[in-house]
């Protein structure tokens, strides 16, 4: 029996890891071979029980549609889910996700993708006035929770997650990433702590166009989870990554916090530093902690998350997990280890270790969007 959902008797699914990310601020695209090369340097940070990638800009022809990647462990689940999709979405295109038969990934679910948009007269409208994004989030949670044998692992626009049980370099081969092009990539190599690994549990974890890869075990998971549940998030996966994604979704998409402030919630300054700020900032940061104390990620973490506007990497407020960043021209690289960056960019302009809790934020320079198909290699 394939494990695409977490059926293990564990309150949490946690892991140690390696991670890296590549972004081109001018949206120049690269194919998946660089990110594969980088993450494979961090081979020993994982144990073969989870690897994955997120790529942005890979579906330019369907950029206005939600791209659902769904894994099925049996075909009747596919029939059920497709009935739901047909009732609620216009499906512009659907196809199997291309994979390569490889001896390294000998056991895998059936993988299918759908380019869809919510119907304006969906049944749901009889009861709710949800926007499309919220409806998509609800649909993803509904399928993942209620449809046995089906798991949505990617649901954003013009982006996609590709992941599974295996080492990331093997997962990259399995999904033929060298044939996929994007202007931003993240990758993850997983070392599950208390489960044997399962397909849905590999990183990146995604929601709409959020994608998160993460290293470390959040010590405040218990209260982070209960805090999110108050806002009706359903934490079905019981992973730290899921918690981080939902916190960012709540802060940035729902509460409309600027990204930098939202990140301050995750790794807030200590009161002794807040007390030294000028009165306006002190008031703001104190309020931030008073209101969002339950969303503070306490304990070790390094995360890289991607969204339509760019990429962010940061670690916890006392730097319990490693993070290195480098830039070369319009490219920025982040990784758990410097060697991962050096493997694909031997001579960066600068290379640095971000301070505890200080985010590296790279946003796309929207004015200089390159022409479609234009791409460069390092």
């Amino acid at each position: 029996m394939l494990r695409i959902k977490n059926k293990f008797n564990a309150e949490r699914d946690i892991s140690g890891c390696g991670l890296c990310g590549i972004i081109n601020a001018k949206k120049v695209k690269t194919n998946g071979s660089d990110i594969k090369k980088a993450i494979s340097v961090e081979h020993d940070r994982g144990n073969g029980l989870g690897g994955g990638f997120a790529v942005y800009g890979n579906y330019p022809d369907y950029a206005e549609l939600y791209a659902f990647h769904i894994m099925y462990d049996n075909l009747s689940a596919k029939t059920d889910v497709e009935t739901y999709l047909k009732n609620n979405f216009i499906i512009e295109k659907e196809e199997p996700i291309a994979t390569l038969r490889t001896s390294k990934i000998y056991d895998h679910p059936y993988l299918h993708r759908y380019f869809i948009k919510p119907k304006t007269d969906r049944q749901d409208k009889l009861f709710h006035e949800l926007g499309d994004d919220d409806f998509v989030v609800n649909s993803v949670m509904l399928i993942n929770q209620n449809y046995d044998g089906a798991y949505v692992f990617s649901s954003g626009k013009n982006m996609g997650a590709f992941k599974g049980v295996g080492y990331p370099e093997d997962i990259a081969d399995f999904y033929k990433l060298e044939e996929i092009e994007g202007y931003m990539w993240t990758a993850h190599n997983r070392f599950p702590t208390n489960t044997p690994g399962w397909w849905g549990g590999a990183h990146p974890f995604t929601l709409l166009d959020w994608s998160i890869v993460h290293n470390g075990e959040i010590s405040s998971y218990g209260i982070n989870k209960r805090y999110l549940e108050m806002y009706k998030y359903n934490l079905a996966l019981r992973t730290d990554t899921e918690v981080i994604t939902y916190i960012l979704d709540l802060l940035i998409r729902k509460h409309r916090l600027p990204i930098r402030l939202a990140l301050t919630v995750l790794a807030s300054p200590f009161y002794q530093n807040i007390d030294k700020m000028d009165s306006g900032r002190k008031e703001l940061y104190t309020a931030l902690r008073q209101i969002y104390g339950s969303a503070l990620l306490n304990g070790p973490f390094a995360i890289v998350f991607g969204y339509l506007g760019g990429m962010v990497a940061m670690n916890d407020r006392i730097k319990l997990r490693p993070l290195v960043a480098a830039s070369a021209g319009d490219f920025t690289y982040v990784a758990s280890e410097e060697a991962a960056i050096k493997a694909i960019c031997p001579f960066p302009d600068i290379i640095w270790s971000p301070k505890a809790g200080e985010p590296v934020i790279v946003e796309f320079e929207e004015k200089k969007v390159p022409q479609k198909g234009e791409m460069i290699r390092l």
Partner: protein
Amino acid sequence: MTKTSFSNLQPEYLALVDHNKCVRCKRCIQNCGWGTYSFGGDKILADHSKCVACGRCYTYCPEGAISIVKNPTVIRENANWKENLVQNIWRQSETGGIIISGMGTTFKYKKYFDHILLDACQVTNPSIDPLREPMELRTYLGKKPAKLDLGMDENGEPVLKSKMPPQIELQTPFVFGAMSYGSISLNAQKAIALAARALGIVMNTGEGGLHDDLVPFGKNIIVQVASGRFGVHRDYLNSGIAVEIKIGQGAKPGIGGHLPGEKIGLDISRTRMIPVGTDAISPAPHHDIYSIEDLRQLIYAIKEATDYEKPVSVKVAAVHNIAAIVSGIVRAGADIVYIDGYTGGTGAAPNIVRDHVGLPIELALAQVDERLREEGIRNEASIIAAGSIRSSADAVKAIALGADAVAIGTAALIVMGCHVCGKCNTGNCSWGITTQRPELVRRLDPEVYGERLYNLISAWSHEIQEVLGAMGVNSIESLRGSRERLRGVELTDAELKALGIKHAGL
């Protein structure tokens, strides 16, 4: 009925004086507030029936000549008819009175804190060294908006658009519970005030008004409004950091209060603003609150009188339907809800209520926190858990179950020498705590006990930091409500469900 002088009651304790060691210094006679000792011409005599085992005499006997022992004389008892039941029947048949006591219940109900184990980090996430790295205990009590209300300044930097509702800043998640001047002595209140100020936490006036000597401690004081409205006036409401409406108390839910007239001397009379010598009666309900909308009316009457600058707390006893009650209180506009469990203390309560009414704070707290989260209003009010917090471990467990802070009452009195004899109602406390007799009050030095209170709470705070570090978090807010870090032992499924925690091993 005519009263007979003959009594069946037997002394509970014997005050034994070793006459070979005794130097007849008579310190025991001086120290005992109960009149147990007298001088018989050549030696100290003891009236055992008056001894409550408060420990004052042997603590202050320079020769170690006194021992207090449980009366070995058997009052015949069996598993059903316990000694105290028999004695109480005699007591009531001789007086016709309602039996009252001080402190919390002495009954042996299950203590849930003692069946909860804490988590710690090993390998997969690291513990943090609390002595060398920051470990934050600062806690804010008050209403928190669900989301930040942001604007932009002229540089495009985010700034707070609307001011935060008023908060109480605590440097460590403890408060001193409400103990009025009247139920305890002014010196006891002063010791607590000194400690509260030094610790950066708050104390609570209880329903006894605010004595002039405590006015300078306003920033560390919550002033209480209870059903008797003693000492309550406009300036009083504005003199503290917050205002608390007392609905109930864990030791006596649904019961009013009654400070007997003989305790209302000149000073208490001034503080409570009532005449000398009259009973100070607190009605069972607030007569302006017969329904939840009336509570809202009083909350906002206080907010209007304080120009919305003070958080308003509502104190309730933990009773069976506590989760729904607190939800109503929060929706009525309370900024803080203080929940007092059934083991909480009191200056005086009928035993039938003290020993038989209410709910353990652990279960009440767990249910309240869960209910407020289900309703999406947990941010609307802070929760203070009370009702016999006996150690820092109890505090940590309460916070992990969902409390923002815990209140210390009995433990603070123990610091001052209290041996929990439970006779607070009599006003004879030899330690000068629950008495108004000047010769007894005088012996309680506020400076000395203020420092000891400071020591206790500092020590407990350090212990909490140790536990936070072991759990791998460096801020108390990452523990608050984090039930994942708790496991139950020797608890039934129903108990685990009520606490919202898993059994150890799972």
